[in-house]
C-alpha cells in the first residue's frame, strides 16, 4: 500500500528525469523498430508517384524550429521523392522564421540528388499576408514573387517559364505546424481545384482527418510516426524512423504515470 501511495505522489522532477532518460537511452543505444505504413501516408506518397515527369509541385514551408524534428524528415523525404521522379519544386512559405531551415534541407537534398537551382527547384521566399498571398497566386505568381529569395528576378530561371498560377501547378504539399494547412485547403484547393496533401505535426493531424474523408486532400503525413512511414516508403529511413523507439518508450512511461496517478486517485477516494 505504501508503495502505491508513493507512486501516486511522484515529484515532478522525477517525472522529468524519467522522461528525459526514456528518450535519451533509446537514442544512445540506437534501437530500431519496424514501421507500419498507414493508408493516409501511403496515399500521400502515391499522389507524388502518380505525377508525370516534369510536373510542378508547390511546397509551402509553414513551420519553424518548434516543429522541425517532425517536419524536417518529411520535407527531406518529399524532396528525395520529387527529385528522383524529376518533378519541379517551387518553394515558398508563410512562417518567415522557418524558411531558412528548409533552405538548408533543400540545398542538401538537391546536391544529393543532383538537382539544379532554377532548373529543378526554386525558393521564392516569404511574403506576409497568408491567405491574400495564397489567393493572389491563383491569378499570377509574379504579382507577389517577382524575385526569388535572394532578389533575383524569377523570369531569369528556366523552370519558371510557363508557371504563372495554380493552373500550372500539379500538386500543393503543405508542411505546417499551425492553421496554414487548413487555409490552403479552404482558400486554394476548394477555389482553384488543385490537388494537395498535408505534412503536419501531431498536434495538427487530427484536425485534417475530416478533409481527408471529404476528399479535399489526398493524404496526411502526421507527426513523427507519419514522417517515419514516409521515410520508409521513400526508401531512406533517417531521423524520424530512428526516433520512433524513443517515442515508443516515452509513450509507455507516460501511460505508466497516468496509471500511477489513477491508482493514487482511487486509493485516496477509498480512504475518504
Amino acid at each position: 500500500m505504501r508503495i502505491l501511495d508513493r507512486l501516486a505522489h511522484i515529484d515532478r522532477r522525477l517525472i522529468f528525469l524519467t522522461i528525459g532518460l526514456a528518450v535519451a537511452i533509446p537514442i544512445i543505444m540506437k534501437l530500431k523498430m519496424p514501421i507500419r505504413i498507414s493508408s493516409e501516408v501511403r496515399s500521400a506518397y502515391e499522389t507524388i508517384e502518380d505525377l508525370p515527369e516534369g510536373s510542378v509541385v508547390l511546397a509551402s514551408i509553414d513551420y519553424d524550429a518548434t516543429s522541425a524534428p517532425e517536419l524536417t524528415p518529411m520535407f527531406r523525404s518529399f524532396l528525395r521523392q520529387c527529385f528522383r521522379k524529376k518533378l519541379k519544386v517551387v518553394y515558398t512559405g508563410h512562417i518567415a522564421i522557418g524558411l531558412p531551415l528548409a533552405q538548408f534541407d533543400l540545398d542538401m537534398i538537391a546536391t544529393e540528388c543532383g538537382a539544379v537551382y532554377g532548373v529543378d527547384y526554386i525558393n521564392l521566399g516569404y511574403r506576409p499576408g497568408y491567405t491574400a498571398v495564397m489567393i493572389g497566386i491563383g491569378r499570377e505568381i509574379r504579382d507577389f514573387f517577382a524575385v526569388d529569395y535572394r532578389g533575383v528576378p524569377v523570369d531569369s530561371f528556366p523552370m519558371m517559364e510557363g508557371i504563372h498560377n495554380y493552373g500550372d501547378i500539379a500538386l500543393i504539399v503543405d508542411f505546417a505546424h499551425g492553421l496554414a494547412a487548413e487555409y490552403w485547403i479552404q482558400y486554394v484547393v476548394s477555389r482553384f481545384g488543385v490537388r494537395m496533401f498535408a505534412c503536419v505535426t501531431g498536434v495538427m493531424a487530427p484536425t485534417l482527418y475530416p478533409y481527408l474523408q471529404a476528399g479535399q486532400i489526398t493524404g496526411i503525413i502526421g507527426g513523427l510516426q507519419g514522417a517515419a512511414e514516409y521515410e520508409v516508403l521513400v526508401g531512406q529511413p533517417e531521423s524520424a524512423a530512428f526516433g520512433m523507439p524513443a517515442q515508443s518508450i516515452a509513450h509507455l512511461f507516460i501511460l505508466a504515470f497516468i496509471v500511477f496517478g489513477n491508482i493514487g486517485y482511487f486509493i485516496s477516494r477509498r480512504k475518504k
Partner: protein
Amino acid sequence: MKREVPIIITFLTGFLCVIAFFIPHPPLGDLQQRFLVWYAIVYGFTMVLGLDSLLKYNVKKITQRKEGWQYSYVLLFGLALVLVTGFQSWLKYGTPFELRSSFMYCYIHIIVPLQATMFALLAFFISSAAYRAFRARTFEATLLLVAAAIVMLGRVPIGKMIWSEIPVVSDWLLNIPQLAAKRGIQIGVYLGGVVMSLRIILGIERTYLT
C-alpha cells in the same frame, strides 16, 4: 472621420472580395488582385508594431533599475546583434540569406536551438500534467483517457508489438469518431466565422476599431 471612414473602407474591401469570388473577371478580379498585393505590403508593417513596446518596456526597465533589468541588456544585445549581422550580410553578399553569412550563423546557432528547446520543454510538462490531471473520475473522463491511451500506443511501433490490433483500433478512432467530433465542432466554428465576417463587412462588428 475617425470611425466612419474605416467602416466604409472595411465594407468596400470586404464586399469587393466577395463579389470578385463570383465574378473574377476584369475589372473586379484585377482590383481584388491589386488589393491583395497591398494587403501583403501593409500586413508586413503590422508585424513590426510590437517592436516599439518591446523597446520602450526594456529601456524603461533599465533606466528605472527594475527587477531583472540586467536581462533587458541581453534582450537589446540580441536585437542589435541580429540587426547588425543582417545588414552586414546584406552588404557583403547582397542578401542576408546567404548560408555562409553571419546572419544565418546567428539563425542556426542561436534562434533555432532557443526556439526548439523552448518548445521541447513541453514534453516534460505534458507528461507531468498527464500524471496529475488525467483521472478516470467520470464515464466521459474515462473515455477521453482510453482514447488517448489507444492513440498513444497505436501511433508508435511498440503498440503493434503489444497487440497487433492496437494500430487498427487507433486508426478507426481517428478516422471515425474523432473525425465526427472534429467536424461537428468545426462546422459550428465556421458557421460562426461566416456570421462574424458578415458582421464585420456590414459594419455591425466594430471591435477592431477600438
